[in-house]
């Protein structure tokens, strides 16, 4: 086999592994506290106090939740498909974590005499990898619901399948203009291209479409039809308990962080920003997105299913297509370097 037969520098491997470990730690901790933050913020919105009993200000609540989930019975419905039932939560959580590999979360730093990008893998098809992984995440929802052998779970997973592939389309299409502007699929290039001005300024329409689409991709209110506790008990994860339920849950919150990070990367200049270091800017933007998600959850009611499909196919997708055309015309008229 020709091609990549290069012995990698052991130092590089060490650094990459360290980065992976660090990112994993940060992401999981953040996801856990995002759950806590959501409960507190929702409580505030509803004039309640929220969990405030475990530790100071309830800060140890995620730990308590973890212990509870770990000690619960790991149950599989007798008529369910055991194998897929146990596989599904992992298929939901792992793509979400993997996606973070391509997100540049800070300015490159010099360490041990070499430039170290604050990014686990700087793929030149990074954006496509994101698309690929998000399309894989669909399987977790679909198989989990189907393997439960429960009508609520099956309905939830059917809804989830249709919703996720529908909104993936508008999400992908809304990203095309950014690629056209940055002239690269590489995420570090996209960030670099926004040095002069964030893409949200040039592409407000694409940003709006992307924002709505990632809300739907996260299955968050107002697009939480696959879970819809008022109609389907808990949707596709009705039959899950213990840590498997926890995996679905954590996957969802990691997804929020990852998609927030990607939104920042694609439209808000990634880690770029004045005065403060890049790391702070990036995480600040991610948390701002997370807060927005929670805020929206505390405000909006759930859509009806036909409204959801209408919005996806008849509003967002055509708008994204028109936006691509407009951008193409603009680029064509403005010449090779519009920015």
């Amino acid at each position, binding site marked *: *086999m020709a091609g990549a*037969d290069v012995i990698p520098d052991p130092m590089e491997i060490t650094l990459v592994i360290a980065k992976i470990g660090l990112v994993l730690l940060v992401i999981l901790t953040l996801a856990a506290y995002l759950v806590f933050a959501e409960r507190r913020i929702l409580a505030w919105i509803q004039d309640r106090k929220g969990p405030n009993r475990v530790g100071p200000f309830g800060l140890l609540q995620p730990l308590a939740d973890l212990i509870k989930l770990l000690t619960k019975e790991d149950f599989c419905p007798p008529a369910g498909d055991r194998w897929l039932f146990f596989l599904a939560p992992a298929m939901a959580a792992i793509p979400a974590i993997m996606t973070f590999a391509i997100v540049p979360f800070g300015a490159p730093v010099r360490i041990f005499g070499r430039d170290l990008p604050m990014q686990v893998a700087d793929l030149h098809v990074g954006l496509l990898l994101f698309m690929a992984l998000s399309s894989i995440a669909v399987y977790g929802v679909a198989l989990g619901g189907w393997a439960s052998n429960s009508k609520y779970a099956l309905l939830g997973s059917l809804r989830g399948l249709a919703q996720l592939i529908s909104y993936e389309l508008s999400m992908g299409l809304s990203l095309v203009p950014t690629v056209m502007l940055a002239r690269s699929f590489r995420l570090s290039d996209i960030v670099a291209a926004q040095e002069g001005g964030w893409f949200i300024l040039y592409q407000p329409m694409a940003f709006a479409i992307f924002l709505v689409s990632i809300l739907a991709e996260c299955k968050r209110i107002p697009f939480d039809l696959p879970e819809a506790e008022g109609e389907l008990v808990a949707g596709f994860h009705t039959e899950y308990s213990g840590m498997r339920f926890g995996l679905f849950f954590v996957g969802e919150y990691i997804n929020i962080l990852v998609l927030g990070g990607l939104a920042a990367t694609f439209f808000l200049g990634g880690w770029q920003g004045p005065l403060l270091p890049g790391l702070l800017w990036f995480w600040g933007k991610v948390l701002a997105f997370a807060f927005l998600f929670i805020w929206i959850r505390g405000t909006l009611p759930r859509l009806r299913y036909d409204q959801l499909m209408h919005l996806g196919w008849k509003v967002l997708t055509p708008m994204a297509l028109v936006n691509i055309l407009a951008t193409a015309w603009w680029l064509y008229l403005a010449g090779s370097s519009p920015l």
Partner: protein
Amino acid sequence: MAATLFYILATVMVIATILAITGRHPVHAIVYLVTSFFALAGIFYLLLAPLVAMFEVIIYAGAVMVLFMFVIMMLDLGHPERGGRPALGQWLPALLLGATVLATISYAAAGFAGDKLPAMLPGVKEFAVTLFSRYGVAIEVISLQLLFAVVGALYLGRRR
């Protein structure tokens, strides 16, 4: 290193494909097939064709198979896995076609065995330029076809 990875991926792919063919449960078969696609994408990546690898996953695993699954889950197919095994007569055409394909590939592989792969495969830009200039017309025809399909679907699904 790359060779090791290739053999691992190839083994996974072959086994998954065999399981997908012989599996009697459609949902299990889809899961095996998706696994096979993943392995294939990995092999493409090793062959320095990351674009193809990504499209493999996005289009085949992420779209086509999901639609398959959607249909299988929507239509209650009962329990086809409990049905009988296909008779030998039904296996024959598949075996025949399989043998033909295998022979062709062997012949082709033998023919190209000595050739060297180009040192660098074209990047995204070259790929795009080729696609939209040299094969531009074909692409447009195909996309028009897709547009018809979309319009047709909207027409069928319109509210009466």
